[in-house]
């Protein structure tokens, strides 16, 4: 994970530094890989599909998306993003580097259906369609062997239930199954959708991973029992003079765990996209057909690797979430007493809430 993150940060810093001079030079050169990659992994107010032609004569084929903006002074406004194309302004709003701003400089809250939001809606609809179909399969094949879509997803669902939830959460796993299953399939579906040509980088968006991580944090805290807090504020087996340090460390741990979830998913998926796009960019950088076999081979390799990463990251997110929940709902076990001796045992018994 760390290595991937550092690779990602390398790319980020490279492209940031490359951006400034390239922005001016780009008009002449026509292709700037850093800009192209950042545009691909970022969000947009239009769904850009293709660019036909080059330079000044280029025709951008893109789908305009709805703009929804809330301004404290004017209230809610909603219109097609096509109105803002080519730097036009509408209703006192305009796009500056694909960022919605008010012409008079006042505050704008942008709730637009961006490329990522549209992709999110699509994946939500897809998930609802797929899993209600799977659920129908169970009704139709009641008491019989599964078939079709149902038999494809059943092992995955059973794996999540038996290997992830039951093992890490314990007997109370059933309450958390809907969240774990939804999170797993949401991440997996969007990771795969993100690999499609022209698709949005939804699961590699930090806002998306942040929401998922915060939900995990909320669920963990909401289901925590007194043992969880006793572990944080009176860690069994820790000498008393060390407790102030341990409390700080353990308390920060509450937040660093979901933070790592957020960064891990975001960095892995974004890094994968950056690597694939970088290999594709080589064709345009070298402007030679000779580089195509190398690009193709490496691009294909990374893409197939990304197929694996897609399910792996969904698995890791779900596994860690269930481990955090498992830590929060875990009942006291006697091992703590033996390590801590009499002192620690007494402290562990004190309700810390």
């Amino acid at each position, binding site marked *: 994970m760390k290595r991937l993150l550092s690779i990602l940060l390398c790319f980020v810093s490279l492209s940031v530094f490359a951006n400034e001079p390239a922005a001016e030079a780009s008009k002449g050169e026509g292709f700037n890989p850093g800009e192209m990659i950042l545009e691909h992994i970022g969000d947009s107010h239009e769904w850009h599909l293709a660019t036909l032609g080059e330079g000044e004569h280029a025709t951008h084929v893109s789908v305009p998306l709805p703009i929804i903006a809330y301004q404290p002074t004017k209230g809610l406004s909603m219109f097609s993003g096509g109105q803002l194309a080519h730097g036009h302004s509408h209703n006192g709003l305009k796009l500056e580097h694909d960022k919605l701003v008010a012409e008079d400089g006042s505050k704008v809250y942008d709730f637009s259906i961006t490329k990522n939001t549209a992709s999110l809606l699509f994946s939500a609809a897809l998930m609802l369609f797929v899993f209600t179909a799977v659920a129908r399969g169970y009704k139709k094949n009641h008491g019989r062997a599964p078939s079709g879509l149902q038999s494809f997803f059943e092992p995955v669902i059973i794996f999540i239930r038996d290997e992830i939830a039951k093992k890490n959460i314990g007997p109370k796993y059933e309450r958390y199954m809907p969240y774990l299953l939804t999170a797993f399939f949401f991440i997996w579906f969007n990771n795969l959708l993100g690999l499609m040509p022209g698709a949005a980088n939804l699961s590699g968006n930090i806002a998306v991973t*942040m929401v998922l991580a915060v939900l995990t944090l909320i669920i963990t805290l909401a289901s925590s029992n007194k043992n969880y807090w006793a572990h944080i504020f009176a860690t069994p087996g820790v000498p008393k003079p060390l407790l102030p340090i341990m409390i700080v460390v353990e308390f920060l741990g509450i937040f660093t765990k979901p933070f790592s979830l957020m960064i891990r998913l975001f960095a892995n998926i974004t890094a994968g996209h950056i690597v694939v796009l970088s290999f594709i960019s080589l064709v345009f950088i070298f402007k030679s057909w000779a580089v195509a076999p190398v690009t193709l081979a490496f691009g294909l390799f990374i893409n197939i690797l990304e197929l694996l990463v897609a399910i792996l990251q969904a698995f890791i997110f779900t596994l860690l979430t269930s481990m955090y929940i498992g830590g929060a709902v875990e009942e006291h076990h006697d091992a703590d007493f033996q390590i801590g001796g009499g002192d620690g045992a007494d402290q562990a018994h004190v309700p810390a809430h």
Partner: protein
Amino acid sequence: MPAFLNPELGLIFWQLVIFLLVLFLLAKFAWRPILLSLKEREDTIDNALRMADQAKIEMQQLKAGNEKLLADARHERDRMMQEATVMANQHRDAEKARATEEANRIITQAREAIQQEKNAALAEVKNTAAKLSVDIAERILRRELAEPAAQTQLVDSYLKDVKLN
């Protein structure tokens, strides 16, 4: 900070709303029925396996019971046959003893009867012999007494005998 490291408010909002909506809908219409069906099916399979095991054990018990019954029957038959043999032997022995006794009794009776008959026959022979000898003696005497000399002679001999006695 590059734009893609900056979480956008709009996307956070939509992600939260849509994810929670999907979570709610899937929990109600997909995960609940799916997990219930899976559990139900697993329970059914578990039950079926347990019942099969139980049936197997019952079969074994039944088989063991049958074998025991068969062994018991065989044992009973052997015992009965032995008993019957013993009884038959006893019966035969008793019969034999009775027959022997009867035969002995008959023989004894026969012997006694023969003895009696013999005794009777002997007595009759004696009587007849005595009678015959008296008759003969009488006839002889009648003829002898016809001559006086011989008569005297005889008396004399008797007298002699008497003297001698």
